[in-house]
């Protein structure tokens, strides 16, 4: 009796102790640096004496009033959205085809899809700059066809192409997971009721993958909006995105507080957009799909 009682006695500290390692990691690697960055963003910066121990909101006001920064924010938002939309349009059918593949091919193509993630971002991006450059493969191909060469490198197009390339796996995998859970006879039911294959996909199959598309889009949008290497290498000196301008402020201008302010603004904007999008899609999907 007493033995059993001691064994089942609640230990109020146990959950906290068990959660401690993860909590420490989270606090140490995410919350602390974030808090330091937030504090830094309110520090006064002086070109002659550097960061001073005084506080001001001037950094935020500078960023939010300067058309140069606003244009960069706008571009970041635009390119991240465009990348997300293209990734949804390419990734969803791709995931569907993957679910329909037979035994050996599915694993092979899954590997092909994850392929870009296995190559270092720098190598992959240099690869794109060689393909898209003035003297690159794309322009050679156009020349063979008798067309004018086009300026691709250091344009937004180049950034979006390279972003979509690396983001596709993050879209395909959640959508594929969602599609795998579907009952294949539901599609057959749509066909038997007179739907064409395309209509069956559009009206019946893809709507059921809404939550997979939602999580895919959130990952892709978040990663694209904070992408650094791709805009840095393919956008050149002129075409800045949020992450590259933060880098500039820190390492070229040495204005850390201003860089920190930009980083915080981008973080908050990203968070607001993603939360709003999540609320919107999830509310619709919730009641239907449970």
């Amino acid at each position, binding site marked *: 009796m007493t033995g059993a009682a001691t064994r089942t006695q609640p230990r109020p500290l146990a959950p906290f102790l068990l959660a401690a390692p993860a909590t420490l990691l989270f606090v140490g690697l995410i919350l602390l640096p974030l808090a330091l960055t937030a504090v830094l963003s309110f520090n006064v910066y002086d070109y002659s004496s550097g960061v001073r121990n005084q506080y001001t909101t001037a950094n935020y006001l500078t960023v939010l009033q300067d058309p140069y920064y606003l244009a960069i924010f706008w571009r970041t938002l635009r390119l991240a959205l465009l990348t997300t939309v293209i990734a949804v349009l390419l990734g969803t059918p791709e995931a569907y085809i993957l679910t329909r593949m037979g035994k050996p091919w599915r694993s092979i193509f899954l590997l092909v899809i994850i392929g870009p993630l296995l190559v270092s971002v720098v190598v992959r991006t240099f690869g794109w700059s060689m393909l898209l450059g003035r003297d690159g493969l794309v322009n050679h191909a156009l020349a063979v066809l008798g067309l004018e060469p086009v300026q691709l490198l250091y344009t937004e197009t180049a950034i979006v192409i390279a972003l979509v390339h690396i983001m596709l796996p993050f879209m395909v995998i959640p959508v594929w997971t969602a599609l795998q859970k579907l*009952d294949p*006879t*539901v599609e*057959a*039911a*749509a*066909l*038997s*009721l*007179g*739907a*064409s294959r395309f*209509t069956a996909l559009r*009206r*019946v199959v893809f*709507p*059921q993958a*809404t939550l997979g598309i939602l999580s895919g889009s959130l990952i892709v949008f978040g990663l694209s909006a904070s992408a650094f290497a791709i805009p840095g290498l393919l956008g050149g000196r002129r075409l800045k995105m949020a992450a590259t301008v933060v880098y500039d402020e820190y390492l070229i201008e040495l204005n850390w507080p201003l860089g920190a302010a930009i980083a915080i603004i981008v973080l908050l904007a990203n968070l607001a957009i993603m939360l709003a999008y999540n609320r919107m899609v999830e509310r619709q*999907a919730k*009641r*239907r*799909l*449970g």
Partner: protein
Amino acid sequence: MGFLQLEQVSKLYGEFAAVRDFDLEIERGEFISLLGPSGCGKTTTLQMIAGLVTPTNGRITLDGRDITREKPARRGLGVVFQSYALFPHMTVAQNVAFGLEMRKVAKAERDRQVAEILSLVKLTSLADRYPREMSGGQRQRVAIARALVIKPPVLLLDEPLSNLDAKLREEMQFELRRIQRVVGITTIMVTHDQAEALSISDRVVVMEGGKITQVDHPYSLYEHPKNNFISSFVGKSNFLAARAMNEATGVSLRVDNTDLKIPATGSYPGGELCLSVRPEKIRLTDPAGAMLHGPVSSRYFLGNHWLLSVSTPAGEISVAVANLGAPPPSEGDITGLTWNIEECRVLAAEQESALQS
């Protein structure tokens, strides 16, 4: 010529024949069941009719029109899948309206037809629910409504009742038959449950290993099964090893050391035979003068009847005794067994096919 006709239809998966030489003629308005154990090719047959699986050989005609290679959408048959396959992201009304939408029926007319069919299946009050907010029986009725609303020439049901609990299954069985009668639609139902097939079908098609073994009305199927497989699959049966003894007066069968006179309606080749007799056809009698006798080895009470097992010289025999008040002999008691000689089937032991019908 039947309304729906299958001629020599086969489906091969590589070397394996899921369905072989399937021949069936179905009249307009008939309720047909495909009955057989799991894996015998029932679903494959149904899906070939629906157009979801392409036959390897053979021909399927509907009302004289060859539909063997037609797309499922063109055939316009109503299909109810085993899992119901409802669209989870659509309400009941939207699910039912889908087929009409595909047929470009105007909104007002669509709403009218959806309301009509939902009242037929008694789901009017649940029109705005999503499938996951409903019980199994309700989902099943949505699936039936969705298949019926397009006014298909044939309704195909794949194990429509197998996901329901026993009590609901019994209710839905008769509900299904009622709906079928009201609409007057030609219906093919797949099932592995013989009670279901017998109770609501006009004709039952028994399948085994991809082939048809018997097509008959439920009563004749039960009373005159063509082989041992059918007599054990459709209802229960006792099998007794027997030997034919030709005599001047007719035929008598020797079971163990008792001679049983059998009306001479067929010719029995000398050799091993198999007698099959259903448990409910056997009567308990005084051991003296009975066909067989022995001690009761087990006795179970099943509510409306008792199930006894009796150890006789011819083997263990199951006997079903209606619960008429007085309890039957208990375990260990010696009892005699008798049945009308016309009630048992005689089959050749090795071929397992009917010699007498």
